[in-house]
């Protein structure tokens, strides 16, 4: 049987191009791609549900999603953005729905595996912290 040719824009390379994983050595990016999975959502599909337990951490590889709280859209997020980490880190229910507004391609890490992954890959944790700091600053500017 002749194996099918793999696509050139494979999962590993897509991950390697994201700033969140920019400091990971290539073998570690490969391990990441082999350990966690890609998930694709159609337009209108929900990724994370407000007030529902057990959801994971998502990094957008392609496409766009809306952050919706109590039915009101609050933000649009896109390639390179990530979500789901706040409810995992605080052990509380998600405060928003995240709904695909186009075809949405994500890397997903289950809630119960995120901590071990971040402790093993502190460079990813640092990049995540930087992104959180930027979000916090943006929120403060908006409020003032």
């Amino acid at each position, binding site marked *: *049987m*002749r*194996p*099918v040719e*793999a*696509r*050139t824009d*494979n*999962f*590993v390379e897509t991950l390697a191009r994201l700033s969140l994983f920019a400091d990971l050595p*290539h*073998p*570690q990016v*490969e*391990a990441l*791609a*082999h*350990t966690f*999975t*890609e*998930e*694709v*959502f*159609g337009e209108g*599909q*929900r990724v994370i*549900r407000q*007030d*529902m*337990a*057990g*959801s*994971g951490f998502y990094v957008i590889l392609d496409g766009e999603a809306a952050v919706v709280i109590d039915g009101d859209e609050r933000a649009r997020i896109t390639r390179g953005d990530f979500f789901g980490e706040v409810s995992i880190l605080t052990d509380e229910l998600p405060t928003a729905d995240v709904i695909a507004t186009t*075809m949405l*391609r994500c890397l*997903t890490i*289950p*809630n*119960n*595996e995120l901590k071990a992954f971040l402790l093993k890959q502190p460079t990813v944790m640092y990049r995540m912290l930087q992104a959180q700091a930027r979000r916090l600053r943006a929120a403060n500017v908006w409020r003032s």
Partner: protein
Amino acid sequence: MAELTEQPCPPGDYDVVVVGSGPGGLQAAYCLARAGIDRCAVVSRDPAPGGMFRRFPIYQRLISWTKPDAPFEHGTREYENYDHNSLVGDEPEHQALAPRFMDRAYDLPARHEMESALVEFATRGAIVVRYGCEWLSTRRNDDGGFVVVTSDGEFRCRACVFAIGVTDPWKPPIPGLQDAPHYADALPPEQYAGKSILIVGKRNSGFELAQGLLPWVRTIMLASPRPVDTSMLAFSPLRLRYLQPFDEHVRGGSGSHVVDAAIERIERDSTGYRTVVNGTSWEGRLVLESDELIVATGFRAPLRDLPSLGVATVNDGRLPALTPYWESVSVPGIYFAGNVTQGSPGLRKHGATSNSTSVNGFRYNARLGAHHIAQKHFGLAVERPTLEPEAVVPYLLHDLALGPELWIQKGYLSRVVSFDGDDGIRDQGIVPLADFIDRGAADACAVAIEYDAGGTIVPAVYIRRGGRLAEHVLPPHPLNAFDAAEHERELTARLAPLLS
């Protein structure tokens, strides 16, 4: 066997076309006919039923069990919890066929036993298939339907169901790997006698090869980037069947090694293979030398031209991305059955995904998918029986304790009961939980079996009232007896607002 050898289903116009005659295709065809789809064509390139079980597993023993003797009679719904290999039928004579062919040497059927059970299901279920008819390409029809082009001609339909398996060998783009033999090309184990073997891959097929080769080879090594996650494997039938090479490695048994490493490149010369690897759970680089190398990096669904039709894929194009009812997320009307339905993972609560890679899970997917197609595309609604208020709690408790769909498709399938003031209380049947949560609006409840954050099996109840959804996880039970008094009390309390 007349049905199996004639050439029925000539090219032409149909309501639904099913591609494939493995367990997924047979289950879909059986259920579509019983859901009221009269004009259904089933085509298969194979000469007979069985799909992948006509050839795989390569070392001839399945990894999912069937227990011929159980507390429930063959043919009952409850017995399905003890039989993870039979397809499901609507009549007793179509049920529980796998245990009939098992010689009881092992609780895991041999490949030929599984194949026999599938042939028997096709015969008894009068499933009409056009064998030797290969699907070649697909295009949209002017009327909004599809044209399925085959080696025998064109089949036009409004919806199609691809039960095509996940059987095309797949190799990642690593230099030198493309020329090495894949799992699917592995030789009989005795041909590896006395040799050193490197297996690239540490999932099902890698461990199956290693287990099969252990009695013959000199040394064996498995390498891939991801460490073996024994806590995850605790939930997998792999634990039972294939982990001996890993256990040997952990024990320090000489000659068995399991290496966490990304493969950089593979070189081959007259003496064998040299594989350059970089550690992932350790730092450094090694060159692994072996007489033989087998690539066990998995398979992909043979989707042919479906991606060019717009069918979105996941996992490096290996699987179609699917809705909770196993329809392409991007091309409505294109459905999937069989183990390719793993393309719909479900809610992934606490990381748990659907159990759609094996017969026990996807047999229910095919049944629900058939009813969904019948309703959505042909307006054939399934009758939803009414329930008396006092019957609701016992009915749901029974499913929480013994419902095979809930137990086998944990966190994916649920039992739904609706509470409509005018229409009364109705059993809405088995429903994908994500569909209940994301698409419903009316007052209703769903019950499901799930893993909690610590991996314990728990019952869960979802209640929607006045448009608001609430999730309640009930306590575990040491015997998983979720129809015990404690659960009855809590379920009764949770349902009280809907029943009042």
